């Protein structure tokens, strides 16, 4: 099923013309952003030099750290009067990244989500329960608007209260759900415990954290759904950027709205189809916050085979990050955030290790930190207080519950050059 068949199955030659037109419009919008004015001046680029897709390579990359320096509204290309919504995404040092949307952006974004939901077979016959954070996180309102646009009966369920979530699925005859894969598995187990029948479900959309084929099988078996992978990030509107079609072999990215490049994350060199690297995206229809060659940090590749569904080239399922960002239960965590917290607590040293595991389908983060030699006075109760202080400070900053292990000074590994303080053991499933 198509939401917008003409654009979803556009021929390559026509697509290129559309992309180049939209690229030029995007350049024009970017010239209202101080950061890009300064970039073009520095690089000696004239906006009119960028006419075709081949010209794109003249432009340097934009990184998340650039966005951070623009906090809060430095990357807006329109006056705030034209911004109708703001979302934020967690940052590395306490300051979030701010993203803004015009009325047109909300229209575009909901349209992309409507395409995705129609592609996976949802219609106005469906009842859709959206079980992610409905606040500043883009996943909640993003899906909500798109689902309403597609005419689907939409439940803005949000997070928490699993018992109530299960009752709603059962009582309202919910046919489709959206949540993190870990929450999906948690939901299945809770329903079994409650002896509640979830057989009305037929489709599950899972995103915000990477998940394996093994998890897909488990989700499908336990929830009785067909599981679809969803990809997006706030800087590119939010969810809806790329989505699995019923073939379940990679994710369609909407080429009329996003210009895709894959690069070697170290050299910055462009890679061809079939070569795995970092996804770099130039959004083509964003109004409030246009971006050029944005480095997503996510690792994927452009797939060589055409999809039988008739839509354009797909991205392979994502396999990790090019930087050290972690996604824990759907929340972005940067090791530098952990470092900042530890530096502010004199009772512990600033050496640490982070271990991420998946235990009973939930991401669990364990932090090992050394007790500071000078602040030990021999009392067990003091150490317990220090441990609780670290846990609480981490929770305040990361909005995550963590396990903290106090270890003896001098026992954690010391690194020369780039530290490898994060051990993500979730891949093992």
């Amino acid at each position, binding site marked *: 099923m198509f939401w917008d068949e003409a654009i979803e199955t556009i021929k390559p030659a026509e697509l290129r013309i559309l992309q180049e037109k939209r690229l030029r419009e995007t350049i024009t919008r970017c010239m209202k952003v101080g950061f890009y004015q300064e970039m073009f001046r520095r690089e000696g680029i004239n906006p009119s030099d960028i006419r075709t897709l081949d010209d794109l390579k003249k432009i340097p990359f934009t990184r998340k750290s650039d966005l951070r320096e623009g906090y809060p509204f430095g990357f807006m290309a329109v006056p705030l009067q034209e911004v109708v919504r703001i979302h934020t995404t967690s940052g590395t040092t306490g300051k979030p990244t701010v993203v803004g949307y015009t009325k047109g952006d909300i229209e575009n974004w909901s349209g992309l989500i409507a395409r995705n939901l129609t592609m996976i077979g949802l219609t106005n016959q469906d009842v859709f329960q959206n079980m992610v954070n409905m606040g500043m996180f883009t996943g909640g309102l993003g899906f909500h608007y798109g689902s309403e646009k597609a005419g689907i009966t939409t439940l803005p369920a949000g997070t928490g209260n699993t018992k109530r979530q299960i009752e709603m699925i059962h009582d309202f005859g919910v046919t489709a759900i959206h949540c993190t894969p870990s929450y999906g598995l948690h939901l299945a187990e809770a329903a079994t415990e409650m002896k509640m029948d979830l057989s009305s479900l037929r489709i599950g959309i899972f995103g915000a954290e990477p998940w394996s084929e093994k998890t897909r099988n488990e989700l499908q078996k336990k929830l009785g759904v067909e599981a679809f992978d969803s990809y997006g990030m706030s800087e590119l509107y939010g969810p809806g950027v790329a989505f699995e079609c019923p073939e379940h072999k990679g994710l369609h990215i909407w080429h009329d709205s996003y210009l895709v490049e894959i690069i070697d994350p170290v050299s910055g060199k462009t890679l061809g189809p079939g070569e795995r690297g970092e996804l770099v995206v130039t959004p083509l229809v964003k109004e409030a916050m246009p971006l050029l060659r944005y480095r997503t940090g996510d690792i994927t590749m452009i797939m060589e085979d055409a999809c039988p569904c008739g839509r354009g080239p797909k991205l392979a399922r994502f396999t990790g990050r090019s930087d050290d960002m972690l996604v824990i239960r759907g929340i972005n965590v940067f090791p530098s955030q952990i470092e900042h917290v530890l530096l502010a607590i004199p009772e512990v040293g600033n050496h640490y290790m982070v271990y991420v595991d998946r235990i009973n389908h939930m991401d669990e983060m364990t932090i090992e930190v050394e007790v500071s*030699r000078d602040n*030990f*006075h*021999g009392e067990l109760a003091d*150490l317990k207080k220090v*441990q609780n202080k670290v846990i609480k400070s981490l929770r305040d900053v990361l909005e995550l519950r963590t396990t903290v*292990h*106090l270890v003896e*000074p*001098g026992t954690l590994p010391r690194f020369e050059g780039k530290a490898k303080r994060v051990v993500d053991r979730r891949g093992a499933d």
Partner: protein
Amino acid sequence: MNCEQYMIRQISLFSENKPGRLAALAKACQEENVNILAFSIAEADGFGVIRVLVDKPDVAFSRLTALGFNVAFTHVIAVLMRDEPGGLFEIASKLSDAGINIDYSYAFSGKNKAILILRVDKVEEAIKLLLSHSFTLIATDSIQ
């Protein structure tokens, strides 16, 4: 009155709860010819504090620190206790009546005596109180 002679320096050592830590401590004491008179281990969430009374605290402290252990001195008192029913009660009740809190304690009973080691919140008060009730406190110089 000089209470200090009854303030015994206990070595408190931070340790992760994993195999080999007590052995490492004991080995260091053996190599320095330090005798361990009493010890206890208090355990929390994945870590603990090993508390040791030794005959040569300064030697032990510097050796353990040199080995990388996180070590601190804590003042405790050691009371001679009747090794028969009621022996612990008469000490604990005196402290409790005086509003003195025992943070932690450990004890051992030997051939002809039992000794109670106490970490209390008001050390001097506890020493004066126990002496005034004719208890025998172990003086630091008799063991260290």
